């Protein structure tokens, strides 16, 4: 389980995240939505330990990131937005490097073979990453995230640039991960996907939580009928100066 408590992040004087608290339970998919600059990527970077939280605590399965960073990172898989894999490694070497870095080499060959097959990258196995298209690089990044047995999966705009088959495979993998009891946090602008895929949605604006809950709870927050789509809810809630009742944090 991922637990974020009172997360604050300053970049020098700029406040990017302001006292954010949320949880992603085991076997739960949570969508992180918000307009550009809302702080979604900063939250994911704080959770992965790429940037240091100014205040607050981040825990995975009760282990604190601040005091036990390596142990927490071992439990996380992260797919960055527009990933840039190492161009001078082959596809296979890239997967192998990630497995080595996470110290999960047992059964690597089988897992890597299966992953390449799922994403139609079998034929590219020995090709340098520099020869891959953008979509293939995205698929490789996803394969890297799933090559080690993470407890928490963080995905930053994972569906951009992938072909329909790739999108289908990724959705399947996310569902499988959910059934295997993994906590999944997806940052996305694709509202229809979020609506269908996520158990719960967190809507951010200017580093704070604007609303949180399942679709029914969001309808309530936005004072909209139950027929309203997530897109309608999102547009209403994120409208500047709109009268919005902030949902109490769970």
């Amino acid at each position, binding site marked *: 389980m991922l637990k974020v408590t009172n997360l604050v992040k300053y970049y*020098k*004087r700029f406040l990017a995240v302001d006292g954010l608290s949320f949880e992603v339970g085991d076997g739960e998919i949570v969508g992180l939505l918000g307009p550009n600059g809302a702080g979604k990527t900063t939250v994911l*970077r704080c959770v*992965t*330990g*790429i*940037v*240091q939280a100014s205040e607050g605590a981040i825990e995975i399965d009760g282990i604190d990131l601040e005091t036990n*960073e*390596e*142990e927490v*990172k*071992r439990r*996380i898989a*992260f797919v*960055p937005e527009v*990933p*840039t*894999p*190492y*161009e*001078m*490694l*082959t596809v296979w*070497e*890239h997967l*192998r*490097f*990630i497995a*080595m*870095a*996470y*110290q999960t080499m047992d059964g690597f060959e089988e897992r890597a073979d299966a992953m390449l097959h799922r994403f139609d990258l079998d034929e590219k196995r020995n090709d*340098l990453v520099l020869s891959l*298209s*953008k*979509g293939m690089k995205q698929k490789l*990044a996803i394969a*890297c995230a799933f090559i080690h047995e993470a407890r928490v999966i963080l995905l930053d705009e994972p569906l951009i640039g992938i072909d329909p088959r790739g999108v289908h495979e990724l959705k399947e993998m996310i569902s499988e991960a959910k059934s295997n009891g993994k906590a999944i946090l997806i940052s996305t602008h694709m509202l229809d996907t979020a609506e269908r895929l996520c158990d719960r949605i967190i809507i951010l604006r200017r580093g704070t939580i604007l609303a949180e809950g399942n679709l029914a709870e969001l309808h309530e927050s936005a004072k909209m009928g139950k027929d309203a789509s997530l897109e309608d809810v999102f547009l209403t809630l994120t409208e500047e100066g709109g009268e919005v009742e902030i949902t109490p944090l769970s």
Partner: protein
Amino acid sequence: MKSLLYLEIRQLINAIKNTTRSPKRLIPALLMGAWVGSWFIHGILQYTNAPGPRAPSLSLIKDIPISLLENGVFLFISIGSMIVMYNAFSSGMMIFSVSHIDFLFPTPIKRKSVLLMKLVKDYLKYGFYVAFFFMFMGIPAFGALNVNVVPSGFISIAAVTALMALVINLSHTINIIFTFGFERLKQAGTIIKVIIFGAPASAVAYGLYDFMRVGNAQESFIQAMNSPIINFVFAPAHWCAVLFLAPLNGVTKIDQLHLALLTAMALISFIVLLYRRENIYEPALGVSTKFAERRVAMRTGDYSGIRVNELRDKGATHAGGLSIPPFGRGAVAILWKSLLLRYRLSTTQLMMMIMLPIVLIYVIKVSLPRPELLSYLPMVLLYVVWAMSMLASAEMRSELKQANILKSMPIRAWKVMLAQAVNSTLYLTAGVFVFSAVMWILVPETRDPDPNKGSLLLACMFGAPFLGFVNVSASIVSALLYPDTRDPAQSFLGGMVSFILASLALIPCIVIVLGMLFALRSSYSNIAISVSLVNLIVGALGVALAGVLFHRFDPTSD
């Protein structure tokens, strides 16, 4: 650590394999290797005292007193160190690749291991750069003084590398501390900045005082560089300057002690940096992304991209200044857009367009050994245009980033290329006019027309833009032939082709000029008109060819 070594080794092996597999990459690599190798052999020849090439221009160094040389080196080193340290307060130098950010930072590999690997790689890189610089500049310079650089040259390399490591370690540490303690340490930062800039300011004051008292500029400079405050604050840079000139001065016991101290300081600063508790990934994040964008722009010769990045860093949001009002339809509108963008992105270049002619013409005027040649100075315009027009290929590559937009417009390809060529030619023409005006003002010899042949200045002023048009179209063709300069091979070949095409375009002009000047004894104005007509035709053919290439150009990057 094992996985990091795997990553580095695999990347190195694959890079070598990738180079050797393609002749397009292998040939430039071999040429570069041969070039470096020839310098290395040159160094060896010098060591064995065998006859080898010497750099005659560097023999000027002979006349400079060693103390002045030493203080000059010190000044250069200390200014460099000062700039690096000052910048560390706002922007870091801990540059990682974007791949590291995406795939290495989130892994459970210890930050200390990542930092250790990064620093060791950096030190090796600095050592290599210093050795390389020493081979290119140091060996010929010391050779001009008949001084052998072996073995004391190694001391020079070691000293500069140690100082570089020290300065970089300190700047990393400052940047990490101030990234996380921005508000808390604001006051301390101000004090350090005052010390960094106060010391040189005190030296300037000290030097000025000495100059007013004694009146000897050289002596006052040396006094300023050796003022007590400078000696204290920049002591490591001072030791480094002395050690750098070890081949000249020899190495005393004190110098050996200073080298040991420099190494120890570099080592201590390395350990301090390695054991910082803050998250080093965070300060590296912004600067690495920015650096990656800039590197791509540099590699592709996309100077507009570099300028856009600079403007973004400065926080520019409004156009500001003068503007070019919209005009034209179709291809003419493209011309307007190109003129406007170039004007907006090249303010420095435009300033240079005014400053450069003044400096260049003044230097030529005072240094020309035979003043009677000054009346032929307008011919410089032709050389300037020829050299500057080759920059058009970089502009074209930059424009090709928008090829998707341009190709989807209902405008014929040759017209798009014509707009591009005219844009570059118009800027060249403006430069030619500024140059001509400066020449007319500063060099009276260019004003008087030849009684038989007329005004050379006017003829060159009229002919140079047409020559520019030909060369610009040649450069555009080369950019279209080798559009992807992210590939070093394409970059190398693109540059070569641009040079060859621009030189080939000169041949008809040279033939006509020589023929008309010596066989027909025509006036300058007749020659200029004839050559310009030929250039216009050749340039138009170049534009037509560029149009065909642009029509076939595939902008798909995925």
